[in-house]
């Protein structure tokens, strides 16, 4: 079953071609890493596929009505914004807004979704703390939990692990993996190619305003592409402990 279909998606922002003719499809049970250098259009691609920026072409998500789309895909933007000192569990409850007519009367199901997300992101012990007083990494976990509480078949997250400590980076990727085990899918933009190689089932590489490669990590992360798109050399090996990837040097 396809959860997201993009065909010939192009975005032009202020007369600059940001993306041209991007086509791909995400089925169920996939953890897709979206990789590419700064300015390659990762954020724009995700926002356009949700219909948050004007684009040409087709996106199956953007063509849904707003209320419907909110039950189909959750979005965690890169800007970690929590405007008011709400408690952690209230912020996570905000993820239930698509299902609620008012935040004042959540149902058993809503509470269960929030509890699940809090436990998943290791936040139970800080549930009553004000989200604005947490550290940057802790806030990121709260916002990931918020997106998870939306319980959508598809989750889009823009650099969700940036600023997290190593243990929580790995735990977060494993949480995304756990979602794919029950048939959901995640599209996650990442700068850490090591995490991407290790945890993602599939990588989509963007560069120079378009899609460069799409496939399993071992096929996408070739020496030639890394040199061309990222300008780096790297060591990549499938070991007994799974795939290991280590960037080495900048291509001069």
């Amino acid at each position: 079953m396809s959860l997201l279909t993009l065909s010939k998606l192009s975005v032009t922002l202020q007369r600059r071609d940001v993306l041209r003719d991007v086509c791909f499809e995400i089925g169920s049970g996939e953890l897709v890493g979206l990789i590419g250098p700064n300015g390659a259009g990762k954020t724009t691609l995700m926002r356009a596929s949700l219909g948050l920026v004007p684009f040409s072409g087709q996106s199956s998500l953007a063509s849904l009505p707003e209320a419907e789309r909110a039950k189909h895909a959750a979005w965690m933007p890169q800007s970690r914004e929590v405007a008011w000192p709400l408690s952690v569990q209230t912020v996570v409850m905000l993820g239930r807004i698509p299902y609620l007519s008012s935040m004042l009367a959540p149902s058993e199901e809503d509470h269960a979704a929030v509890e699940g997300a809090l436990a998943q992101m290791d936040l139970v012990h800080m549930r009553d703390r004000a989200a604005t007083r947490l550290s940057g990494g802790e806030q990121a976990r709260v916002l990931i939990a918020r997106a998870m509480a939306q319980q959508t078949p598809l989750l889009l997250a823009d650099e969700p692990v940036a600023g997290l400590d190593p243990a929580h980076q790995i735990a977060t990727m494993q949480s995304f993996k756990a979602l794919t085990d029950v048939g959901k899918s995640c599209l996650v933009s990442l700068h850490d190619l090591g995490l991407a190689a290790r945890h993602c089932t599939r990588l989509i590489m963007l560069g120079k305003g378009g899609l460069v490669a799409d496939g399993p990590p071992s096929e996408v992360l070739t020496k030639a592409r890394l040199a061309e798109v990222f300008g780096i050399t790297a060591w990549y090996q499938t070991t007994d402990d799974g795939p290991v990837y280590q960037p080495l040097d900048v291509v001069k």
Partner: protein
Amino acid sequence: MRLMGMLSALVVVLFLGSLVIGPAGIGPAESLSALINGDGGPLTLVMREIRLPRALLAVMIGASLGLAGAAMQGYLRNPLAEPGLIGVSGSAAFGAVLAIHTGAAAAFALALPLTALLGAAVGVFVVMALAGPGGTSLSLILAGIAVSALAAALTSLVLNLSSNPFAANEIVFWMMGSLADRSMTHVWLALPFMIVGWLLLSRLGRGLDALTLGEDAAQAMGVRLGRLRLGLISGVTCVVGAGTAVAGAIGFVGLVVPHILRPLVGAHPSRLLWASALGGAAMVLAADIAARMILPSRDLKLGVVTALIGAPLFLHLILKLRRERI
């Protein structure tokens, strides 16, 4: 819920206080029975024609300012936002000033509130045209500031060109904001607009909650930002325009009340809406009672009292915020 109960009780007590306190020096029981039973005597007249409209307007205007302030702060995600920010009170005041200056207000009692309402409508129309159809809050703030500045400049121009010192005096006093000598006509004039505004603003709660996480996240949760903004602007225009039309500009209520109550509702934007409505009503009732009791012979203006209470309160909050941030 307990907070709402306490705020409601406070509003009821202050409302009754506003009814029974006055220069006539009549006992509370006697005043209230004259109000309810209506023996046709002078006391009934005082209660029904002077004190009741005054207390009712204090509740209506206070609730409007509190609600509009909470909605504006929630929408702009800024604790310094206030209802006047989108230019409504400035343009309503300009309309009223024109009515006083041209003498229309003296010729026809309702000319002043009606031109004020017209001013609010024109001002907000310009704001919406300037801000454009998009959903971002920045363009709305900029358009609001531009219209407020223009309305203030035009008001100053009228004062500047006013050849009649009495008219100029009246304009200055009117702009301070007051509930003195208002009648039930003013209540009936403002009430329909305010009810529409309250309904529009009360529907924003869910969207304001979602906006806590930013415009992008809110939109992805199914909130239509354009519609939210339209509801906010129309709601604020209705309540603040009507309030300014009947009582002049009363500052600080919409700024301070949401700020004080925010920690008490767990910073929840939707819960803050109604708490601020009650808190605003209580603050304006209290300020109006104070205005009558402190200098009974000098007609102290309500807007002056709210500013005198509001500014130090606001300073205190800023100092508290500064301590917390360190």
